[in-house]
């Protein structure tokens, strides 16, 4: 049985600490904006959490350093996006409250970023597929009519550009490497491809922000992503998976709507342990 979409999750409000600050004045498209900020922040948080699982276990010391560095960039970005989400929401929730005190159904990250690390090939392929999307998203966000979004995106864009440079380079080298590295990268691509469609689905929140000129529709980012991916896969001598069934793109499904895979609950159980076990303690 699939988990329930977030609209069915009761009592989300009760998870938030009593908000002392006065609610911010209602701004136009507030709900859509909060959704977008949660989606963007949660992508960074969950992928950062996943990458940090490699710490000390990567196949070379340089990779330990690089992955920790990327995780650090993503955690930093998530602090900014979630901080802004809490401010726009106006219920007094901080970035930490949002990261540590929401249950899985309230998370808005893509299914792709919660996929388990598996082998290093899966980790790199997941990173590449996401980085290529992330850069396009941030490129658009840099030009947002909302200066708060544009400001965070300008900082994050620089990091994402480097992330993509690195992950694309490794996908090429491993795809066009040994027979084994080629096969592993091809297998990773096959396993992850059906989680890429969700990045480009549009829903009412997306349409509201597009209409307001805050962010373009996710679907508009697709052609650039397709070009990057096709070019890198070609150079990597990997076979493009073509049209396959995509996960999380129906009206009721997908991480963007809070309907996640089983993996997210386990990730959160670990990540939120101290905040849940010692409510209200300061660290």
């Amino acid at each position, binding site marked *: 049985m699939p988990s329930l979409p977030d609209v069915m999750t009761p009592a989300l409000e009760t998870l938030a600490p009593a908000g002392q600050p006065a609610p911010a004045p209602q701004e136009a498209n507030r709900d859509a904006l909060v959704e977008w900020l949660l989606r963007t922040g949660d992508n960074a*948080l969950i992928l950062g*959490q996943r990458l*940090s*699982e490699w*710490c*000390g*276990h*990567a*196949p*070379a*010391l*340089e*990779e*330990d*350093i690089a992955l*920790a*560095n990327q*995780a*650090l960039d993503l*955690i*930093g970005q*998530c*602090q900014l996006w*979630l901080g802004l989400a809490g401010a726009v929401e106006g219920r007094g929730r901080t*970035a*930490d409250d949002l*990261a*540590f005190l929401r249950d899985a159904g309230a998370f808005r990250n893509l299914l792709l970023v919660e996929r388990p690390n598996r*082998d*290093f*090939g899966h980790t790199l392929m997941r990173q590449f597929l996401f980085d290529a999307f992330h850069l396009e998203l941030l490129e658009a966000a840099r030009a947002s009519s909302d200066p708060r979004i544009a400001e965070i995106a300008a900082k994050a864009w620089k990091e994402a550009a480097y992330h993509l440079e690195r992950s694309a380079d490794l996908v*090429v*080298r*491993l795809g*066009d*490497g*040994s027979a*084994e*590295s*080629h096969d*592993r990268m091809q297998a990773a691509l096959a396993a992850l491809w059906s989680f890429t469609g969700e990045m480009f689905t549009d829903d009412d929140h997306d349409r509201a922000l597009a209409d307001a000129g805050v962010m373009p529709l996710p679907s508009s980012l697709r052609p650039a992503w397709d070009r990057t991916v096709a070019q890198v896969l070609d150079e990597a001598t990997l076979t493009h998976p073509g049209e396959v069934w995509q996960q999380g793109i129906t009206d009721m499904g997908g991480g963007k709507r809070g309907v996640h895979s089983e993996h997210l609950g386990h990730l959160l159980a*670990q*990540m939120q*342990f*101290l*905040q849940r076990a*010692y409510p209200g*303690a*300061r*660290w």
Partner: protein
Amino acid sequence: MYAQLVTTEGGTPREGMSDQERAFQERIDRNEKIEPKEWMPEGYRKTLIRQIGQHAHSEIVGQLPEGNWIGRAPTLERKAILLAKVQDEAGHGLYLYSAAETLGVSRDELLEALHSGKMKYSSIFNYPTLTWADMGAVGWLVDGAAIMNQVPLQRTSYGPYARAMIRICKEESFHQRQGYDIMMKMCAGTPEQKAMAQDALNRFWYPSLMMFGPSDKDSVHSEQSMAWKIKMNTNDELRQRFVDQTVPQAEYLGLTVPDPDLRWNEDKGGYDFSEPDWSEFYAVIAGNGPCNAERLGARVKAWEDGAWFRDGLMAHADKARARRVAAE
């Protein structure tokens, strides 16, 4: 201090040295740095490889006990700080392996020696990190002990090692402060948090004292290493300095050092304290610590699981080279 130790070296008078050896020792005595391509006694080179290699291994194995809590760090800021710290440690491993490479040993050779158990890493990393307060205790005590050891090594005679140490010490001092900051937060927190902090101190106190190595009377090869200035102080001197520095810090936190015999000795201007259980130290070094199997096992697994990745990159480099040659 150093000059006295040379005279107490006994059995190796300067007259017995070859001209080359004497010239080498005189350079060290003048505090000149020895650089990679220069002549050095084989014993100096081997001892340095062992010492730098062990230090490098400690940095990379040392990622594991702290990596154990990155996923469970209680706030986003703590998570970011811990990630940055563990990343620094991997970076220290990188400088140190590079410093060792200047002595003619490859990183792969050193890793092979680590994985086969031929080379060791610091005993401290074979202890488990059981609560978040352990992240505080590791930074405060373990990095604190490491700094005690490493600050004097910034003046060590081998140039690449000394220079690596300068950079490492800067970062370690930040690590120690972040560890102490965690402890302050825990000690000012709930009773449960304070209890975690005390428990962490209880478990890490003696293993931290062991980090300086056995007592001087049982420490072999110390004198030669000091003559070569690849060891700048004796184990007991550094341990005393560490205790003298750390006890007031524990008092400030309101924590009790788990040593009933700890007391200030006015005459020596330092604390009297109990020795750690050296039989435990030797057991841990021999592979019988609580986490030896996990720590080494994790490193070996990372290396073996990553073989295809490293081979794939090499295969690509070969192909790219062949294509360049073909195009010429």
